């Protein structure tokens, strides 16, 4: 297991005696990507502020890069705060030069502009950029110091689907190159696209933190195989844990390793199969199930 880049142990924080983060423990190994999900006010942003040293916990402890948070090297940290807006009258080039100038070492401004596809708008004032260009400029600011730990608080809020997809293609490349990524989002699809592990915040508590597959399995049940056929009875009687409808057979609890053997069994029956679908319960239902107390199946 890689050394954790960020760790929180039983961290608690309140705003004016109103608990915002309540006893959260969390560990993020180096070179991995995690997403924190939850409704507005759930505690995601406060937790990120605690993890990056912007806030100090009332109780519990936070470690960054394996050491005490107060001693952590901020030059290795890249943060895009929620709703961050840089100086509107500076251009993307000037903004990247400015933020790059705050670090001991920074990346080439031209390279960052090219990577993010904003070189054509590099000398236009930020206030005159499109929403997508503005968001990419902000991401460039978070990346300019070549961070080892990149924290993005709702990075795709307010940008169009094309911009979102571009970001979804770009961020995994950073993780592949060794950057540890932590994002917050309201978008379950985004979380699954970007993150190895997903955490759910609700009323200041981290309800769960695991891979999407493990969370689905625990809270929504296992993946199942749907076999569409004109002769469901013939197939259903040959398979364990199978249920039958008029034109399909459903087999519960099918793991990836079992899938090949099961398909072979179905084909061996020798009846016509019009479709095979290996499905998992929709991830979107996960959060609702969790906060309603619908435990694992």
């Amino acid at each position, binding site marked *: 297991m890689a050394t954790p880049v960020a760790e929180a142990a039983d961290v608690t924080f309140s705003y004016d005696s109103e608990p915002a983060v309540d006893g959260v423990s969390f560990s993020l190994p180096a070179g991995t990507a995690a997403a924190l999900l939850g409704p507005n006010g759930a505690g995601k942003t406060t937790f990120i502020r605690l993890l990056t040293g912007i806030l100090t916990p009332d109780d519990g402890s936070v470690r960054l890069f394996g050491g005490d948070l107060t001693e952590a090297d901020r030059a290795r940290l890249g943060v895009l705060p929620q709703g961050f807006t840089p100086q509107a009258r500076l251009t993307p080039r000037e903004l990247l030069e400015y933020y790059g100038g705050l670090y001991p070492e920074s990346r080439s401004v031209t390279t960052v502009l090219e990577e993010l596809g904003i070189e054509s708008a590099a000398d236009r004032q930020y206030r005159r950029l499109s929403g997508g260009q503005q968001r990419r400029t902000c991401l460039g600011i978070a990346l300019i*110091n070549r961070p080892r730990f990149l924290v993005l608080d709702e990075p795709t809020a307010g940008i169009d689907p094309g911009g979102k997809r571009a970001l979804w293609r770009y961020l995994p490349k950073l993780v592949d190159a060794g950057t540890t990524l932590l994002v917050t989002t309201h978008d379950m699809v985004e979380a699954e696209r970007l993150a190895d592990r997903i955490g759910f915040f609700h009323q200041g508590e981290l309800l769960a933190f695991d891979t999407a597959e493990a969370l689905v399995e625990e809270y929504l049940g296992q993946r199942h195989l749907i076999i569409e056929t004109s002769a469901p009875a013939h197939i259903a009687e040959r398979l364990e844990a199978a249920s039958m409808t008029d034109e399909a057979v459903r087999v519960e609890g099918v793991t990836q390793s079992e899938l090949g053997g099961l398909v072979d069994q179905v084909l061996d029956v020798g009846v016509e199969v019009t479709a095979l679908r290996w499905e998992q319960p929709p991830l979107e239902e996960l959060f609702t199930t969790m906060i309603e107390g619908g435990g694992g199946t």
Partner: protein
Amino acid sequence: MSRLDRLRAESLAEFRSFTRHRTALFFTFVFPLLIVGAYVAAINAGDGEFLGEAAAYYLPGFLALVFVFTPLSRIDGSIPRDLEAGRLEKLATTPLRPVDWLLARTIVAGVLASVPAVALLLIAVVATPVSMHLSPWILLLCGSLLVTFAGVGAIIGRLADSEDGAIAVGNAIGFPLVFFSETLIPSDVVPTSIQPVLELSPVTHFARAGRTAFSGGTPAVGELAVVGIVAVVAFAVGVRLLPMIRR
């Protein structure tokens, strides 16, 4: 990159941002020129005097106009604005320290204030029968006033709950101090009941020391000490209160 590089980056960004803002430019450069223009006209109409004082009396007041209002107006409103935009939060995660941030803002305010300050003194020399002695004391006093009101601006910016609120408080503090601290309104004209209060104003001590320096003398140690100590304390408190939580 050294701390000097960080200061340079922060100062340059602030300077570029400010100089592209026409309203702010107008307030910084034209407003003091208008006030001084009015004084020059009044002094000339009064045969070299205004409110019973010679033109030289007002020189520290002219400087106070720019070295109080420039740092105050650049810093007080920018703190709630930068907070709202997440810029201070972002900076808190960089190697930039709160003291660097305020120092960079102070440097920019100093550069910006120097231009109208020189212009005001030139206008006074050209358009009124004033003679002045320029000495390093003037620079030291102006620097102290700049640092004081950078700190005061940071304190106001932290305590105010909005940009508008910060600007309003800044003006409510700045205007009486600049006009009544033995600067643009002579103390004889100010009601006697208010005069003891003006002793508490650092601008009063700046004006007294400035008048001595402009006449070629050495300012009293007491005046210099008050101006210097207030500057250090205001700046330190301003840094301490800056809402970049991590230090």
